[in-house]
């Protein structure tokens, strides 16, 4: 039991920094795809809305709804259908940390 716990701890210590770094880099890479259509500025009700500065859980909830085709929008449904939860979270973290431009 103690050995098993130690293994888990070692794994966690080893995995956490890599995982966090991966999330940031992954978010930045995936975000490049979003900005072909989404600008970092503009009103929330723009025809293609800005997606920066959202609360992370809201960002993931909206993407997930597109992925399940519970929100309308052909482009976003196609985009979200291929994103894992981890990728959605990475995007939410990346865009969430940006400040909306006036």
């Amino acid at each position: 039991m103690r050995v098993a716990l130690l293994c888990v701890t070692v794994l966690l210590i080893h995995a956490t920094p890599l995982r966090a770094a991966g999330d940031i880099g992954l978010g930045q890479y995936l975000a490049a795809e979003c900005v072909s259509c989404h600008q970092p500025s503009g009103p929330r009700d723009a025809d293609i809305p800005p997606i920066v500065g959202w609360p992370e859980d809201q960002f993931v909830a909206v993407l997930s709804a597109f992925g399940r085709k519970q929100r309308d929008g052909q482009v976003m449904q196609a985009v979200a259908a291929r994103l894992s939860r981890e990728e959605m979270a990475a995007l939410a973290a990346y865009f969430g940390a940006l400040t909306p431009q006036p």
Partner: protein
Amino acid sequence: MKTSRRDLIAGTGALLAASTLAAPALLGQARPRVVVVGGGPGGATAAKYLARDSQNAISVTLVEENETYQTCFHSNLYIGGFKRYDEIVHRYDRLASAYGIALVRSRATQIDRDRKEVVLTDGGRLPYDRLVLSPGIDLNYDSVPGWSQAAEELMPHGWKPGRQTQLIREKLDAVPDGGTIVMIAPPNPYRCPPGPYERASMFAHVLKRTGRDKARIIILDPKDSFSKQGLFMPDWERRYGAMIEWLGPKVHDGITSVDPKTGTVVTGFETYENCAFVNVIPAQMAGAIARDAGLAPAGGYCTIDPATMKSVVDPTIVVLGDACHAGDMPKSAFSANSQAKVAAMILRGELVGAQTFPARYLNTCWSLIDTDDAIKVGGRYEPRDGRISAVETFISQPGESAETRKQTQAENMAWYDAICADMFT
């Protein structure tokens, strides 16, 4: 924390990708040099993402002969009167000032693959560690009998941006009521698959709006079918009546010849004389610089590795946009922009040890049929079975509500602003 199996697989993928970066070939060298040839959607995007995301650890040089970029995408909206010409013109200044990209205002004429140098029109040479080639298309002036480069003023193509775009608009404006426009559509594969049909829609829109609704537009197509045909054709009939007539090869029986001086088009089926305006959109191929470098051994376009956008002939060169065979991806500005981001990520991995991820691509092609009536087609793409394959696709539906079509056009306009900002600012 709840972790699904899919998350674990994705996480493992990222981890594996990261660990394969142990010894990038050029780590340790002074400053790796990337030369980008062509300042269109592929080249401009690649230059920006390479310079910006490497925080200038990579020396990026963009070779482009023109002072401004005039977008082919949305040039039909200029022809249709939905945009001013200056709204489709973009400058390169900010790529230099904001990201430190070296702009070389010259024409690249040749690639010396042995010495890894780009040769400029004045004989100057630019050495590279990696080359990004995004030259766009060349027109095959021999593909329509009787037509030639010398005839492109009389019978314009309008398939490269600039003066040709304006010529199309001028010729359209001069068409009399009752006049005949003939458009010769190109064979596959070509730049912007729905483009000819959006353009025909814009012709009809302008003619109708200006009271010339007895003019007719005849599309002579070498293809049996075309992009979004099931959406264009019912809308043409609904909005423009009999103005637009599309004839496939089984009907017109082939283009026999054109005569630019008399405005004549001869097909196996009929002769069209005294045409008010003939728009010849010829067959296309990768820009000469790519073909001359031996990167398109099969002739027309360059074959690339779907995971990296690298030429299968020379792994120090990536080929982007219209010049490459991109599997299921159409030749579009959106596709080139998407491919450029994958290539920039891969090259940063090789040159400065940046983290890399599995390639993924995206495209949407919007087409305007009439005021507040736009349609779209698109998809998401990934490397699969040795090619870029569609993994999700979508297309507008026949009989959609007017509200949906209006919203699609609003999205089209918003997309243009965003992607141009992404490329040039």
